[in-house]
């Protein structure tokens, strides 16, 4: 179980990105985080694996206080939490294999890994994970030779190398077109359903939330303004999260067009 308690983040410039946010996530949930751009979604996700240090509040995971962890302990927590990003964040000039192996760094030997030397099982694991995301033939290709969807799959494979129990996904499909968006989210769904990995995923499109999430939280100006089942996300609630002028936009209109071809 992940417990987020009174999380507040004030950036050095004075921007309050999160205000007193509290919620809990049970193991095995698929939690969607929604909110306008700038509402604090990325900040929230990054506070969970401490890429950002929160100003106040605590994050507790499986009885470990992530907010208090330092050094080795923090790295050991991090290696159990996979993360994927909107911009994929691959090292473009390294090969796919190297990128995937990098997911193993938290486990690897601190010296040998500096010379790109990994145990044999890690290589096998890397090939297996590439197989799993459907691009085993790309192992020796440079990452910048791949399309966006393929890159995101490499990123998922990298996260899978960590054998994570929790997966953070920061707008994983925002840079992809709708067909690819579904395929990536289906991978996350499989991980969630088959491997029992808890997923916390920020999303923009409401129909994707309805389709994949088991629970939704909504952020507005850094405050938690919604927490419930996707079906509870009525147009009124939606307006509360996205502001009065907002229109419901879905990706499905385009989806249908793609599928009807």
């Amino acid at each position: 179980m992940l417990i987020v308690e009174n999380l507040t983040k004030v950036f050095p410039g004075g921007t309050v990105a999160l205000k007193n946010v509290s919620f809990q996530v049970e193991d095995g949930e698929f939690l969607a985080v929604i909110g306008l751009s700038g509402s604090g979604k990325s900040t929230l996700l990054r506070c969970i694996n401490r890429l950002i240090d929160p100003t106040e509040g605590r994050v507790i995971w499986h009885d470990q206080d992530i907010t208090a962890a330092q050094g080795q302990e923090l790295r050991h927590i991090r290696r159990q939490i996979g993360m994927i990003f909107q911009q994929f964040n691959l090292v473009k000039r390294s090969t796919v294999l190297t990128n995937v192996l990098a997911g193993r760094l938290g486990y690897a030997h601190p010296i040998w890994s500096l010379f790109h030397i990994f145990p044999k099982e890690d290589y096998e694991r890397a090939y297996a994970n590439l197989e799993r995301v459907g691009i085993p033939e790309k192992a020796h290709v440079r990452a910048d030779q791949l399309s966006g969807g393929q890159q995101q799959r490499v990123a998922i494979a990298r996260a899978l190398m960590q054998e994570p129990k929790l997966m953070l996904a920061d707008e994983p499909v925002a840079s992809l077109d709708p067909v690819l968006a579904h395929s990536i989210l289906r991978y996350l769904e499989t991980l969630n359903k088959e491997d029992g990995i808890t997923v916390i995923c920020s999303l923009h499109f409401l129909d994707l939330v309805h389709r994949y999430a088991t629970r939704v939280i909504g952020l507005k100006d850094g405050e938690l303004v919604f927490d419930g089942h996707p079906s509870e996300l009525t147009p009124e609630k939606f307006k509360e999260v996205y502001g009065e002028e907002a229109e419901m936009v879905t990706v499905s209109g385009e989806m249908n067009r793609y599928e009807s071809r």
Partner: protein
Amino acid sequence: MHHIPDASTPSKQPPSWLSALLSLILPGAGQGYLGFYARGAGILVTILGLTVLILWRGNAALWAAVLGIWVWNVWDAWQMARGRRPRMAIPALLAILVIYSLAFITTEVQPRRMVTGWSSMAPYVRALFRPELFEYPTEDRVGSAPILVPCVEPLPEPSRKPTEHPRLILDKPCASVGDPLTIRGEGFFPNFQGELWWVSPIGDVQRVIVDHQPATFMTDDQGRFEITIIVPLAVPISEQPPPGQTQTHQIRAEQHKPYGNPQPTQTLRLIWEKIGETIALAFLATVLGAVLALPFSFLAARNLMYHNRVTRGVYYLVRTALNIVRSIETLMWAIIFAVWVGLGPFGGMLALMIHTIAALGKLYSEAIESIDPGPIEALRATGANELQVIVYAVVPQILPAFASFTLYRWDINVRMSTVIGLISDAGIGFLVIQWIRLNRFSAMATAILAIMFVVTALDYASSLIRKRLIEGVPPRPDRSPWVTWGIRGVVIGLLTVIFFWSWHVAEVDFTELVTGMPAGMRMAKAFAVPDLFDRPTEAHAIRQPLPVPCSVMTPPPPPSSGPRVVLEPACGQVGDPLTITGYDLPPHTQVSIRWEMPDGSFLRVKSNCCTTDDQGMVQVHTRISPLMEITPESPPGHVGYVGIHWEEIVGGPRLSKTVKTVADLALVTLLMALLATTFSSAIAMPLSFFAARNVMGESLPGRIIYNLFRLGFNLTRSVEPMILVLIMAAWVGAGPFAGVLALIFNNIPNLGKLFSETIEDIDPGPVEAIVATGANKLQTLVYAVIPQLVPPFLAFILYQWDINIRMSTVIGFVGGGGIGQQFRLWVGLNQYDKAGAAVWAIVIMVWSMDYLSARAREKLV
């Protein structure tokens, strides 16, 4: 534990010892036999190349490394035959070891000298902190009195008069070196300090030294003082007056009392003037160069000129010409133009201009080549005519690129213009080198500081303009067109004024190009036919004794056939007419006819003499030289001779000695660039992290360090290696090592700046992603940061390598060793054919290195 897929293992496995044996006999043969031709050839070429290098510049210990590669090659062939593929790390390291060892030997790198030479370097460094900027105007009181050294009887009147007010009274009228001398002064500024000087008979002035300190005095309330000194040795021993004679020296006491407000020093005023000249030259060269580059750039644009055979020919011609001109450094052009139009600003401007034309011509043509045909097509489709297409579709596409290239060239020209004065009397560099020669360290330091600040400021200004060019000027619809045009008018007017002022300062006089034509043509001709070949010669000599007077001996008669000297008369008195005839010499050959004196030395009978005729005869009428006379002092048993000397060609043409010298120096130059690039990269890399904003963070100490490094880089970057080498030569002695040091000191800030900008541009995403996997700091560095930095760093290092090759060709002009030193020497001796060989070597070297690094750069992307 990378799994390298087994590539193309030959189907039928030959026995592994066979390929090993083959490689033992001929390196690489075994690998070739197995079908790995590239690998085999690589090994063979490496071993051959290293062998040639070691034989050339040899150090026997290096053979061990070659042997090591050889052994490795045998092992490699054996392993490859068994289907393995060993890594190349060991032979690569050995090869690098050999090359760098040779580089160290050849460029005379001796770090020890940096320590031993520090004392001579120290005044330069100290001076940098004590520039001559401002001084108070002074009111001076100077009193002097004559003194005779040494004392003689009777004492003559001194040849100089004492001053009346203020007045110096000496306790004696004459003294010898080393005597004490008491001086009383009257009528000086009261309660004020002054200095004592000693003036020698020829007017040399030196400070009087008391107790190893320059002597000063302090006056009392009445403006009086008294001081005892020791008479110094003001005239060298060799020029002391003969015994019984004496010379008038002079003692001078000076007080300089400041008043009023500080004024710029004379030094500063000179610098100000020369900085103006520097900027004027750069400006004029950039403007004229840009304008003249335009036509060439169109002729050198592939997309415009590739249509038919004639234009393609023109394209290649212009391209080649631009490349040749460009690969000869500006300073080398300065030397060439100094011969052509003489020393001075005009020649310097021409040098800057011609290099600008070539460099901009190439850049412009590349901009033309890269224009997008889309808009042109689109405009044609609207029915626009050719001119309209050019105005609306071509010009807007090339203008920004042209402008930014021109600006970039202006930055370079400003820097170059600061060093052109090292060659001719133009720009600030002239002051620097003058003051270094005069040991006026603080004046030199002032000039260098001025260069730093002016170049940095101009750089900053042009970076602002560049930013505007790239981002475009935001439209100001609220501004009335009058204001807009008014501002444009002012800018254009200002530029015009600067242009005419520059024209005036640069002393432009195109007639000099014509009047200097003969000298220029002579040089051009020699350059076109460089001294590449010569033929081996053999020296011959015949002689005939000439007894002066006749009583010394009876000369034997000359042989009746074969080459011989016949003297008419056969002996005589000093001053008698003499006819010297040489017979049966090789026809049409230059000979030298000499008096060979009894003591063995010789002198030409006539200078620029003579050439034999068709029959191989040569004749000279002269008079018997007094040198030939046998006197009682001459060594006994000797007699003078008349000799004829000539050289005969034996054998065919061969590479001349010049070629060997040039090849040798080209190698030195190359290795200088190699060492400089290597060391400066290695030093700049760690430093660059301190100048990267994202590394140093936003904390106060971080920001301070960041700004200090940035400023340090910018200021030191602006001092050209050509100026640095003057100082380095004082430090470690003139030679290649000084050149390498100068390049290093200039490269570190240049590379540091480029590196730190790369670090700032790094994509933070992958770093975040790797941290999120639980990687530690080092792992993050290795997996997320370094992969992003390696390709751009290598690209910048290659770029610096290109620059260093060019720089090292000229750094020898002012004591940096390499080919430039010899080039300048040859030009100075009017040996243009030799200088021409050096120029061609430089062109070839610069070209081939440019080509190689361009290929390497392509691989990086």
